[in-house]
């Protein structure tokens, strides 16, 4: 059990999200979530809004950095630290009233964003209704749906130096949802096909049939096996440390039926990935995100699902140790996950009778009462789940 102040002593990430504010009617309006430098743990009753909050955070990061990913929430502010400098990046995505009612018509949306240096108040850039203003320079016309984070740096004008690292930070937000990857009732082997000159979903050359989450895992590992062997090997190494697997093999064969060119199968200790236990599939899914160097913030819903308590402890230790520069946000009902956290990592998510979700750290009174438990040799979860917050 960590001391109350240990979270403050953790080495801060170099670029990180300090807080995110989203406006979501389903959460009752405006909500601000502060994130710790390394690990943040959301606790709260079922229906409080933990999952929705993580989904909003993920959706907001996607919308800010990828075209065509509009969706809730429409009003967001990210407070970030880039190279130690505090920045506030906010966007509002609004519908252009004169355009069509088709929500997929990109031109029917206006993208408005602003980035300021939070320490000095200096505006770094602003985009509004198709006009970009960078610093004090002359405005530049843009396509209304675009923000600076949507564009490549090789565009027609000079981007502020903050754009690339901010884009990398937000693009690296990944969500692993609750539940197990398999949705189908029966287990089936997963096989991929590659079509000559074909491009599957999300630019992968591989396609397959089955649950999306399972396919994503297999496609990623097969792609890494082919072009990023170091990352593939890292997954195997972490899997061995967690004692969930010994070997991962990829079998590539010529496909007997054109236009499919090649077939791929992924085996864990000789078993096709689709036939593995739910818990093992989930752990491999998690390890991939752990190993992926592009991941900056990992949002993890209920890591305890289908995972043995002993294995869960090893997973948490691996999350802590693998990449000190990465932020992890966990939502949980697990006593074990809470006990592994520091009091400062905890965010209590509550929903009022009026349907408004709030999120907060432990207040001073709660921290004082928590000390009673820790002094008596009890754990953080004993305090949190014994009715202390009711």
């Amino acid at each position, binding site marked *: 059990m960590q001391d109350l102040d240990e979270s403050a002593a953790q080495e801060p990430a170099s670029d990180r999200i300090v807080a995110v504010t989203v406006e979501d009617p389903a959460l009752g309006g405006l909500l601000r979530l502060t994130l710790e430098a390394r690990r943040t743990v959301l606790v709260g009753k079922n229906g409080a809004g933990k999952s929705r909050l993580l989904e909003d955070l993920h959706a907001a990061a996607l919308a800010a950095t990828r075209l065509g990913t509009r969706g809730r929430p429409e009003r967001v502010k990210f407070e970030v630290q880039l190279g130690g400098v505090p920045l506030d990046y906010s966007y509002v995505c609004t519908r252009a009233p004169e355009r069509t009612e088709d929500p997929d018509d990109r031109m029917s949306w206006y993208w408005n964003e602003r980035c300021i240096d939070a320490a000095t108040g200096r505006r770094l850039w602003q985009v509004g209704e198709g006009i970009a203003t960078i610093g004090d320079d002359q405005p530049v016309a843009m396509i209304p749906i675009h923000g600076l984070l949507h564009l490549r740096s090789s565009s027609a004008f000079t981007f502020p130096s903050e754009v690339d690292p901010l884009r990398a930070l937000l693009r690296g937000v990944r969500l692993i949802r609750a539940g197990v990857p398999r949705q189908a009732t029966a287990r089936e082997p997963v096989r991929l096909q590659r079509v000559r000159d074909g491009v599957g979903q999300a630019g992968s050359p591989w396609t397959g049939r089955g649950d999306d989450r399972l396919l994503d895992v297999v496609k990623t590992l097969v792609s890494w096996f082919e072009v990023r062997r170091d990352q593939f090997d890292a997954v195997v190494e972490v899997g061995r440390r967690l004692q969930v697997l010994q070997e991962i093999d990829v079998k590539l064969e010529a496909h007997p039926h054109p236009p499919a060119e090649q077939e791929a199968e992924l085996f864990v200790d000789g078993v096709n990935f689709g036939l593995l236990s739910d818990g093992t599939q989930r752990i491999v899914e998690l390890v991939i995100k752990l190993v992926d160097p592009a991941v900056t913030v990992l949002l993890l819903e209920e890591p305890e699902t289908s995972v043995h308590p002993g294995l869960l402890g090893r997973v948490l230790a691996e999350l802590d140790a693998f990449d000190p520069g990465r932020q992890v946000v966990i939502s949980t009902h697990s*006593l074990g996950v809470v006990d592994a956290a520091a009091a400062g990592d905890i965010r209590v998510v509550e929903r009022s009778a009026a349907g408004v979700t709030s999120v907060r750290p432990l207040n001073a009174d709660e921290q*004082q*009462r928590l000390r*009673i*438990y820790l002094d*008596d040799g*009890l754990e953080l*979860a*004993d*305090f949190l*789940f*014994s*009715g*202390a917050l*009711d």
Partner: protein
Amino acid sequence: MSRIGVIGEDATDVETLVVLLRRIVPGSVGVKTKAPPSGRGGCAKLVRSAPTYMKELWASGCTLAILLHDLDLDSANNELKDEKKLRAHLSALPVPAGLELVICIPVEEIEAWFWSDQAVLDRVGIRAKASSSPHLIKKPKEQLRDLSLRTHHKVKYATTQNPKLAEDLNLELCAQRCPAFASLREQVLRRFGT
């Protein structure tokens, strides 16, 4: 506002007692509750955690703490455990100065209190008669469940209903027929009653 703390081994038992307390002293006291997280060891964990819970309740402004602990059956011989021994064990727990501890030991468990009132049994929907000595009923919770199954051919009763049943329980009748409840009510009224 005065505050009562309720400590129990099970969140449902604690909620049930809170309903009864609010009926015994309506409006005049606040209530704070403590129960070990589910899956954290039941009775044994309750006894280990109770001193800490009492410290926290006292720090939260409680002046009275009720420790609710079933008497239960001894699994070795299927007979009731020794109430005097249990009470002595619980009475030896350290209590913060300024906090009064009331030990409430329903025999055999809190569900026995529901057996005192025919209206509650009717509400559960079972064909059974109320008892003038509910503390003599073996496994009162299981009996409620089994009779519910026999009457309706499916289980209609679950302990999650207990707080609702407590809203209907005739307090006077329960006090006449259940010594543990009578003692609890008397002590709470002595302290907070008008």
